């Protein structure tokens, strides 16, 4: 199956290797990966900040670049939710609404695409040790992603999945929230880090690099040994 890959700006700029891990995982799942080299962002940061005119320009750019009738696989649930749920508000009463409707049906986050569309649970990945999976609010509340990443993780050889208490508690990132309300953002981030630390597990996996980078930047200041991996990173191990 030929698919279009979407690399969130966070991965593009801060952790490009995860983008290649996405390619590796999708190719292993039998996909032919196409990446539009003009691609930039889905517009989410501006949308959340209330900058809808700016968001619309960037989102229109994305809609103009998509290939018709091809699945669009995102390396994050935030972008998936933006396209699936928020484009609806952004493009109301606009000619782009039809284009959005077409894309909406074909947009998937990585774990959704593997589990729900391709029906693949085991890719043959290998990892030795325990990991915690951190749900993201955009995934859990925005897209209903809960079982899919866990199914994938449980199938990884040598991996033991440890569940966190209060899984639905926000990590505090919230896009511009971490800039407008950095006190609360850091407070919530620390709470999340503390429940992670209490499990004794050193590796945190999530579907979104945005939440991970928030926790990582707090953890780094505390010189903690925690490792933060994107779902694609861990799935690419041993492939």
């Amino acid at each position, binding site marked *: 199956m030929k698919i279009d890959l979407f690399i969130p700006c966070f991965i593009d700029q*801060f952790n490009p290797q995860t983008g290649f891990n996405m390619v590796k995982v999708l190719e292993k799942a039998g996909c032919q990966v196409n990446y539009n080299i003009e691609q930039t962002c889905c*517009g989410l940061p*501006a949308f*959340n900040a209330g900058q809808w005119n*700016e968001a619309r320009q960037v989102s229109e750019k994305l809609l103009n670049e998509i290939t018709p009738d091809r699945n669009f696989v995102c390396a994050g649930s935030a972008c998936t939710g933006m396209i699936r749920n928020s484009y609806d508000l952004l493009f109301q009463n606009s000619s782009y609404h039809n284009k959005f409707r077409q894309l909406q049906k074909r947009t998937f986050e990585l774990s959704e695409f593997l589990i729900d569309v391709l029906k693949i649970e085991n890719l043959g990945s290998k990892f030795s040790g325990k990991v915690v999976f951190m749900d993201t*609010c955009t995934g859990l509340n925005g897209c209903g992603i809960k079982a899919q990443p866990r199914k994938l993780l449980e199938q990884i050889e040598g991996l033991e999945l440890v569940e966190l208490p209060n899984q639905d508690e926000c990590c505090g990132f919230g896009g511009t929230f971490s800039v407008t309300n*950095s*006190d609360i953002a*850091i407070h919530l981030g620390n709470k999340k880090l503390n429940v992670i630390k209490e499990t004794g597990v050193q590796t945190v996996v999530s579907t979104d690099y945005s939440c991970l980078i*928030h926790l990582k930047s707090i953890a780094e200041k505390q010189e903690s040994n925690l490792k933060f991996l994107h779902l694609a990173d861990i799935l690419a191990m041993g492939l």
Partner: protein
Amino acid sequence: MSAEQNFHQAVKKSLQNTELQTRTAAAAAKHQFAVAEALKQFADLELARNRAKYIKWRVNENLDKYLIDFEANLMRKGGKVIWADTPQTALAEIEQIIKKNQAKHIVKSKSSICNEIGLNEFIKAKGYDLTETDLGDFIVDGFNEKPFHGILPAAHKTKEEINNLLNQKISTSLDIELNEMTKDVRDYMRSKFFKADIGITGANFLIAENGMVCISENEGNVRLASAFAKTHIIIAGIDKILPTLQDVDLFFSLLSSYGNGQRLMAYNSIVGPKNLEEQDGANEFIVILVDNGRSSTLASHDQREALSCIKCGACHFVCPVFTNIGGHSYGSSYTGPIGSITEPLAHGLNEYKHLSNASTNCGKCNDVCPVKIDISNHIIRNRRDNINAGNETTGEKLAWYTWTKAMLSRKNLNRSTSIKNFTFRQLYKTAWGAEKEFPKIEEKSFNQLWREKFGGV
């Protein structure tokens, strides 16, 4: 200090108060458990919520008509309606009623709108004897505080703190159990009810088709407040309308389930003016309809859904912001996620923009709203409306101009890392927070690496 500075200062203080957070978290957990149990009464909860959403949508779209209907039907029964566009108008009208009746003793029951218009402070300042008859509100009033949460006003207080207060106020003994404290307060209140000249209550719903007022409560104090006093004043926001009596069963059960985790609250009254042949009831039945910014929310076509709120307070207890900063930090009459929508809309998008910003947009609130308000998106719309009103700061303008320039062109986004890191730092470093390592943009973006590998430069 501006409302925004006050907010950030209060937040800093609350975040250090771990004891308060622990107590709030415990109250939230207890609340959520009870709500889940109470919701089992609905054979099809989604249908119930959709229906409630639709009824409130119809109310919002036809509020002008329903309000007039309500007034006409209430007047026909001998009641009176006072329209108050501001809190000052409402308070002045209340003072006139007090003076006209030469009232000395006033009893009042729990109501968010009394807090909104500053009723307690006003009446006390005028020197009248005012008794707050709701247990929770009686306690926060005793501490000279504002309610912590709309439904559970004293959720932040410990049993010991309350016991000490009651010991000073009404001389209860120390070291007694909660039910004994409640009993003492009840005995104290009874005498107040009997003496009352005026009873002031809020309303949960106003029925347009028959001019009746619906009140849901657990303590019976609302019924008593309106039973003995010769004058019953009801203060209600214009958003409290329901079209017909038929709608009440759905809304009573949704309100008590989501608000208190009960299938139905203990006392549910549907009251109106006394009929001629009736012995009991107030001689005067006056409903004060308060606008106070609600019509400016109504004027915004894609935001008026916020007026559908039935004030159950369920969104507060799932909110990561509310449960960590507490109700008092907001510095507004309505708090939590719904307050973050309605306060800026009613009282100034720019003055209260810190409330519109006080959300991580985690979306948990949307799932617990009985009338399915799209809460997290309304919060974002508040931010949008404030920007569209021209209230962006120069720094924000510059940041988003730069962002858009970069995101509209891959060429800009693939510029040298030193330029990108410099720009990124300039724009966000101070706001990012000193307790966080500032993230560094990688030497080459995924896009650049892909182009190098597969071509297309």
